[in-house]
């Protein structure tokens, strides 16, 4: 007990001293609606990506111009980072960590470590962002790189990195070889690192840790069959506080009846590789779970729903226990993760104000639920071509059509495996009451290749071959009806390609909707109609559009592969 008190005292002192430096994140900032800073993945806990900032608005957007740009240099071979301007400036320090040899680290312009898809934190005038194995701090006023951290990797799938978590003056990075690395925000130096899961079991980590109170919430990825879990770590020490498994690991789990047996359930998937949203009133962390495995040859999973895969789940952050769930894709057979960012909204519904959660999932369906209880309110389709269901049942869930699972001779299914949407964060504007999401109407032939369910694993069992796209869209959904309010088709745009392509969206109180488009433009739309108000061509937009306010100036921030661009009013 005495120990505990000492520890708390030390923590308090550490935090206090860090706060004094003016760098540290005040915990109160995390509870505010998105406005001047951007302290967590979605800007605030709601996942709305709706900024209260109004300096840039419809009336003056035509005067939005470039303020600065900054380029990163990933990997071990290049000390420091880009953005070093004149000769008088000292090179930014490179800090190296990691347990690998460095041989597997990627660098160079085409490397995924040079591709920014992460959300970028903005706290007290500094930006913090990441790519696989790499993290940077930059000055939010001119993009000048302050430090660059590189992790010598032992391996793991290097598909992307969604961003950093922040607590006090500390940052948290997940690495592809499954470490949680705690960095000092001022210097980029490592405080500690903890192994999240064994690399040998083919886990890989791309997620952005989410800091809530004194919990760092971490989800992983895995495309074999290894058990899926969300873990809370102590931000100070990195010790595990609790762990929630997406599928039953014990014989007494009530969800086990939705599986053929315990082995199938244990290896049943459900990885939470995109952050969830958080409701401070109910202490519920609401997150989407991934696809069940084996993904395609699903016989070994039994005929049941395979809980809690492809679901929206509400976890109490204090206890790590499940409070409610709603399955958005019962017994998924197409590897359509439901890991899309849920959006928490307080809005009128059927004549009264309700606490809602809204999600548009990779399978083409759109849902509005009560976020306190999980009560189902609305189901709709945001991709009209989705053809894998036989309608919606009394629970509001789509009923899968087994004929569209796959077929030895091929089943023509919409959407493709990349989905009707994917990881790219949606946005919700209280001004319009509309939910905006990047979507695609696409078809693929799904061929069953693994006719032996005994040995099927992971994503195996099928050969999926795209057959055609009828268009990619910026789609606005009405949360009250589940119907499409409007959509803007990107002219002649090809299939987006899944997880590393941008088009993450943001809305602002300036009545603006920003997003990247497939032509490589950053575009501002009228959120009420989809009318185009402003654009700039950047070559390729890879990350989410964001905004922050500094020295009385509102910045619009965007990442385009290895470069950051910041815009403000001229």
């Amino acid at each position: 007990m005495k120990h505990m008190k000492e520890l708390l005292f030390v923590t308090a002192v550490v935090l206090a001293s860090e706060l004094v430096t003016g760098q540290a994140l005040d915990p109160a900032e995390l509870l505010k609606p998105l406005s001047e800073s951007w302290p967590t993945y979605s800007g605030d806990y709601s996942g709305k990506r709706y900024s209260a900032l109004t300096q840039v608005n419809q009336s003056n957007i035509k005067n939005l111009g470039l303020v600065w740009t900054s380029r990163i240099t990933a990997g071990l071979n290049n000390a420091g980072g880009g953005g070093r301007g004149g000769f008088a400036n000292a090179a930014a320090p490179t800090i190296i960590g990691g347990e690998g040899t460095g041989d597997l680290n990627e660098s160079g312009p085409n490397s995924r470590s040079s591709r920014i898809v992460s959300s970028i934190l903005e706290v007290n005038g500094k930006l913090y962002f990441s790519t696989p194995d790499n993290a940077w701090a930059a000055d939010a006023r001119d993009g000048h790189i302050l430090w660059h951290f590189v992790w010598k990797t032992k391996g793991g799938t290097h598909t992307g990195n969604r961003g950093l978590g922040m607590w006090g003056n500390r940052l948290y990075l997940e690495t592809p070889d499954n470490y949680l690395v705690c960095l000092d925000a001022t210097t980029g130096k490592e405080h500690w690192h903890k192994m999240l899961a064994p690399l040998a079991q083919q886990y890989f980590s791309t997620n952005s840790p989410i800091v809530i109170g004194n919990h760092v919430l971490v989800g992983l990825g895995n495309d074999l069959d290894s058990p899926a879990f969300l873990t809370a770590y102590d931000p100070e020490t990195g010790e595990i506080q609790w762990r929630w498994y997406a599928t039953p690991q014990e014989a007494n789990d009530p969800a086990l009846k939705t599986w053929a047996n315990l082995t199938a359930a244990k290896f049943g998937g459900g990885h939470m590789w995109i952050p969830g949203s958080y409701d401070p009133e109910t202490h519920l962390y609401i997150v989407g779970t991934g696809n069940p495995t084996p993904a395609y040859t699903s016989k070994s999973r039994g005929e049941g729903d395979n809980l809690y895969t492809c679901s929206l789940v509400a976890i109490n952050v204090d206890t790590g226990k499940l409070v409610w769930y709603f399955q958005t894709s019962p017994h998924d057979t197409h590897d359509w993760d439901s890991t899309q960012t849920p959006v928490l909204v307080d809005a009128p519904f059927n004549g009264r104000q309700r606490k809602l959660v809204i999600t548009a999932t990779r399978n083409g369906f759109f849902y509005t639920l009560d976020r306190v209880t999980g009560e189902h309110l609305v189901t709709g389709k945001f991709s009209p071509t989705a053809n894998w269901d036989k309608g919606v049942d009394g629970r509001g869930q789509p009923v899968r059509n087994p004929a569209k699972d796959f077929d030895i001779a091929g089943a023509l299914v919409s959407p493709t495996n990349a989905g009707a949407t994917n990881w790219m964060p949606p946005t919700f504007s209280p001004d319009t009451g509309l939910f905006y999401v990047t979507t695609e109407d696409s078809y693929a032939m799904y061929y069953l290749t693994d006719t032996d369910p005994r040995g099927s694993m992971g994503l195996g069992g099928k050969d999926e071959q795209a057959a055609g796209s009828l268009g990619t869209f910026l789609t606005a959904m009405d949360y009250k009806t589940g119907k499409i309010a409007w959509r803007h088709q990107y002219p002649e745009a090809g299939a987006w390609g899944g997880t590393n392509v941008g088009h993450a969206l943001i809305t602002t109180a300036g009545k603006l909707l920003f997003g990247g488009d497939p032509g490589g433009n950053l575009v501002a739309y009228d959120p009420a109609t989809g009318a185009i108000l402003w654009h700039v061509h950047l070559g390729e937009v890879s990350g989410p559009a964001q905004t922050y306010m500094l020295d009385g100036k509102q910045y619009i921030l965007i990442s385009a592969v290895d470069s950051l661009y910041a815009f403000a009013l001229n």
Partner: protein
Amino acid sequence: MKARAAEMQIRALLPTVIVIVTQLVGQVSAQGQTPARGNAAGVTPANPAGAGRGRGLGAAVNSRPPSDPAQVERGKALYSVRCTFCHGADARGGEGGPNLVRSGLVLNDIKGESIAPVVQNGRPDAGMPRFDLTVAQIADIAAFLHTFRAVGRDPARNPPPNILIGDAKAGQAYFNAKCASCHSVTGDLKGLASKISDPKTLQQTWLMPGGGRGGSTVVNVPPKTVTVTVSPVQKFEGRLERIDDFIVTLVDAGGTSRTFIREGSTPQVEVHDPLRSHKDLLPLYTDKDIHNVTAYLATIR
């Protein structure tokens, strides 16, 4: 994985998008999270090529040092006698025994150190007997187990099934009703099945010629064209080079490239997609239609 879908429209794609595609091909997976393509032990006897959809080089897969072939052979022999019945010859599960390839214990094991206690003590609660094997013998078995590729999709396991299950006659009727206005099996499609002998490739090709994933390139597909009407008397036409909401570029018959800034509906832009009819049919096919047409086209030699 949708990298693959992205490939499909490559011909019609704008240069910028091609960049995206190039970067994505073979790199992204399903979730967007690509499986590390296997336990790079990779050297499965059954599976020497080790081809995978993951991007080998950058995928930075955790690897095991190459195993000693003699040890693997010894392990294989021991495994076949002691383990195959319950765990299967391919170690993916058999009579009562679990899949060992995806077992966390086996994946974490390096040279038998984790496997040995289980084998030597058994798992009485799970029905597994104890085996009187030495540590060296178990290390041999472990070496053999570690040669299996722990991946979901392993084409070597399952030779592709025959997809020609349709009714050629029904396919002919469908073809005559829906396709014959543009195509003829004695004209543009003459000898199609001789040029594309693999039925799956044939099917992917006719569904979306020159565009769909897994299709053949022997079929010539004309490019998208565009008409840009600047004024009632000024019209430009040519191959569509690039288009988004803000710009359109065409190359005219004389090879001249022309670019127009777009502001809303000015100038008027009309894209002509030679594959329009194929796209319009996608929501209309039944799977049976597709299989039948493939069966019919497979007879066009």
